[in-house]
């Protein structure tokens, strides 16, 4: 564990039962019969949202059975109850258009249900049956496992190189810890999982002692009482959830190039451990710095401006101080993925490879390495500038002002509001977004720049690059030998470049990266 002992203490104390009853705006927190309840009453809503968050995720997967938590949760929602088969449930739920599902991450698994107020009573027995008496039928198990096996065997490597690069980085950062494996597991481990193990895993790991219950919308007190009472039927054993594994700090910059047949570009994901989470007040300071450097999908951040806007190299470039679920499809950070082991990361979306550039532009016919080396240098250099110089007063004020408004958009729906409140509990907070607002208001420039100095550096990081097989070796040689990597523009682009850009390009081309290790991995050998 790399977490400081003081923060450990803080986190644990916040998880202790007996929390003080507090009321914020529309939310209410209470502790009842060892259950933590998060309430968000919305009398004008036409529906009820319920979330059951178990503090148990993929880190609880036993060795050799990686992926079992995800599988177990999936079979619960894609299966039946003791009374009703999966098909019978669908027959009842369909006319209501009620929705339910599950999301599983490293440390939590959250079942979500949403139903129109007209159907709450009719729907509730299904919710209750799924959670208290799941069917775990052989046919449901087989169906779910075939898809999960396919995900680890094929989908992760073949559908999105961007997601692939992120999973590959976590595989490096968390090597030999319970945080290393994908929540879906690996080819070998998924194949090991059998139905009896799934039943046992549910019985042992999804208990009332590690549950946070969330409810939002237009519900009655009586309904909530019933829900609380019924959930008491969950096992009262305390699951042995292991301590979360911590990210490791590499010695220098370690690059893993994943060589893939038919890749159209090179996608880069890079990161290093971060000793900070939402539980820490200092997180707000680093949030300002990160927003300035690389706010997700925002064109005014530094990385985006330098790599995409000025140089036309790719679709976007961002940085993160916590895991961002579904970065390719979400504009705003979703709830439901709280983590206590954290890392900083930068994401460079696919840049051009040499073979493509050679085909497109005769003037680049002799090119051997595409844009990946330059893009990596540019990203690290921007981070370097920030570490050395910090934010200016003007940038600090503009970025803080942006965040004060923008973070209020994180929770626009009843479900996302409830989700953020529940994540707050994970971090030992009452209402993270409300508290963040005050923390941002109280921030000073000095605190932000001190946080940058304390938590960010450029000498040690892991880098994963998914690229085409034709690019891998030349890119590896370039990185390993710290070769100059001048930016290769087409003629039409080059003729319009300003002197300022050209001068900066020259500096970036030879910006020294502390590369200590470069390996090439065949895509077929990942996540086995």
């Amino acid at each position, binding site marked *: 564990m790399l977490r400081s002992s003081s923060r450990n203490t803080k986190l644990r104390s916040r998880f202790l039962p007996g929390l003080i009853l507090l009321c914020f705006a529309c939310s209410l927190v209470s502790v009842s019969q060892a259950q933590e309840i998060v309430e968000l009453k919305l009398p004008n809503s036409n529906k009820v949202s319920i979330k059951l968050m178990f503090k148990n995720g993929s880190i609880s997967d036993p060795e050799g059975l990686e992926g079992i938590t995800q599988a177990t949760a999936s079979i619960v929602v894609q299966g039946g109850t003791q009374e009703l088969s999966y098909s019978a449930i669908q027959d009842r739920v369909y*006319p209501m258009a009620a929705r339910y599902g599950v999301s599983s991450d490293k440390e939590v698994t959250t079942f979500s249900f949403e139903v129109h107020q007209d159907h709450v009573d009719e729907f509730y027995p299904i919710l209750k049956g799924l959670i208290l008496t799941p069917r775990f039928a052989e046919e449901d198990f087989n169906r779910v496992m075939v898809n999960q096996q396919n995900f680890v065997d*094929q989908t992760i490597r073949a559908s*999105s*190189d961007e997601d692939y690069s992120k999973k590959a980085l976590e595989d490096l950062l968390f090597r030999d810890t319970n945080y290393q494996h994908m929540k879906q597991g690996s080819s070998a481990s998924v194949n090991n999982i059998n139905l009896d193990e799934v039943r046992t895993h549910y019985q042992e790991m999804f208990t009332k002692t590690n549950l946070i219950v969330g409810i939002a919308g237009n519900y009655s007190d009586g309904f909530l009482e019933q829900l609380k009472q019924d959930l008491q039927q969950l096992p009262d054993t305390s699951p042995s959830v292991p301590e979360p594994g911590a990210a490791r700090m590499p010695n220098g910059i370690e690059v893993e190039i994943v060589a893939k047949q038919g890749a159209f*570009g090179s996608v880069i994901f890079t990161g290093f451990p971060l000793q900070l989470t939402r539980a820490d007040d200092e997180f707000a300071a680093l949030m300002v710095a990160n927003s300035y450097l690389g706010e997700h999908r925002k064109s005014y951040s530094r990385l985006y401006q330098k790599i995409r806007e*000025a140089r036309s190299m790719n679709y976007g470039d961002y940085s993160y101080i916590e895991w961002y679920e579904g970065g390719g499809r979400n504009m705003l950070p979703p709830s439901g993925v709280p983590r206590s082991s954290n890392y900083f990361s930068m994401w460079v979306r696919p840049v*051009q490879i040499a073979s493509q550039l050679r085909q497109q532009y005769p003037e680049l016919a002799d090119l051997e390495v595409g844009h990946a080396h330059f893009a990596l240098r540019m990203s690290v250099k921007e981070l370097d500038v920030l570490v050395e110089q910090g934010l200016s007063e003007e940038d600090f004020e503009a970025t803080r002002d942006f965040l004060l408004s*923008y973070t209020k958009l994180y929770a626009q729906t*009843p479900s996302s509001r409830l989700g953020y409140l529940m994540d707050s509990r994970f971090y030992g907070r009452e209402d993270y977004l409300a508290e963040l607002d005050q923390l941002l208001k109280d921030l000073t420039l000095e605190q932000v720049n001190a946080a940058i100095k304390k938590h960010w550096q450029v000498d040690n990081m892991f880098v994963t690059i998914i690229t085409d097989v034709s690019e891998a070796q030349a890119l590896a040689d370039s990185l390993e030998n710290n070769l100059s990597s001048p930016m290769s523009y087409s003629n039409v682009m080059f003729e*319009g470049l300003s002197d300022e850009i050209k001068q900066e390009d020259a500096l970036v081309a030879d910006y020294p990266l502390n590369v200590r290790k470069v390996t090439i991995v065949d895509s077929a050998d990942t996540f086995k």
Partner: protein
Amino acid sequence: MNTKPGILLLLAALVSCSDDVDTAASSEISTSVEAAAQSSSVETAAVVDKILPYPMTQHQLANGLNVVTVPFDSPGTAAFYAVVRVGARDEVEDGVTGFAHFFEHMMFRGTDTYSKEQYQDALKSSGASANANTSADRTVYHMTGNVERLDLMFELEADRFMNLNYSEHDFRTEAGAVKGEYTKNYASPYQQLYEMTKNTAFDVHTYKHTTMGFFDDIVDMPNQYDYSLEFFDRFYRPEYTTLVVVGDVTPERVNQLAETYYGSWERGDYITEVPAEPMQTATRFVHLQNGNIPSHISLNYKGPAFDDRAIDMPALDVLSQLLFARTSPLYRKLVLEERKARSVGGGAGDSRDPSLFSIDASLIDKADMQYVKDEIVAAIETIKNEGVDQATLNSIKSNLKYGFAMSIDNPDSIARSLSHYIMLTGDPETINRLYAQYDTVTVADVQAVTARYFVDSGLTIATISEDESGGIQ
């Protein structure tokens, strides 16, 4: 939000973000669009028989710009959408496919008032979640944020819609970002198949190409600066545009902002002449050889254009539920019982011109491809010949209504839904008309559209497998 079942290939249709559904037109609005001599307002009270349970006001400026306001209980927050009815459909000239989407990118490159750097600073100061996306039939620019900063949002949007000004170098630079977006998307074999399917299913209509455009045209984009100026002049006009504001606002405030910032925008006169697609006469085939993902089959039937006065599209939406909902016999057989398919789904794409009803199935074993295709066709035939019982039909109608009612729980989703129907008809009231039509769909209607559109001569079969060809008949 539209409750049409998710389809892998249809997901690829939208470039940048995601998008969806909404509302019905009124004759008053149509009339005022024709007249366009002075501003006019129409308020639609919230009534119990309309699917949108909130009052909606439409106000048309003298220049033809329509302004739609829906007050919603979202304290301090509003969604501001600008829907421009231009998309890949309008790319009729050779060599400029993908231009509507490319132009969406250029809209972030500055004006005389705000240089590109100043624009970025101002955008940041809005504190909004802002972006844009393009599809075949429209381009949508959206900002959701602090309602106290709505004036700034209006100022920024109006300024770039009226006074966009970028250098040729900035134009060339942005072309690289579009190529980067194509590179990102192309990693998905489903995107590749989608591109191939459109190119095969259509001969002359502009639905032949995806919103991203043909790759050769994307590579050539840096050389099309002059065309980009023409493009802006044609389409970024008030008669092509509708503003939608949903949230903590009043129509009075929104209309006043629109008059202030958009009042001087000059109307244009360009109308795209999209080539009509000739009748397809035989089944077409296209195949992607890729052994790295599960084998896949996609059946694409030529379908109708969206028309909120005809029963065809509502009936097809009901049909897609009959065929692919998790309660359907086909889903149960292929996915749950026989486990031949990982998933099966499909539906008609809402579009301004006749497009495709696409059905997609991901297979467990490629050897079952012909069997799965035959089962899908057999399920369609069964409905065509035998119809469906009234209870099932009622269940679908209930699902459609409750699904929509539960989805409109924030300003963004409401504005997104309205934008979808504005794209289709120009009128947000289409949403109310469509859901009223769902109520009237009969078994005979479903049988009629099944017979009309599901014919072999209108079919394009697209497949993915490790083999050199799909081998499907």
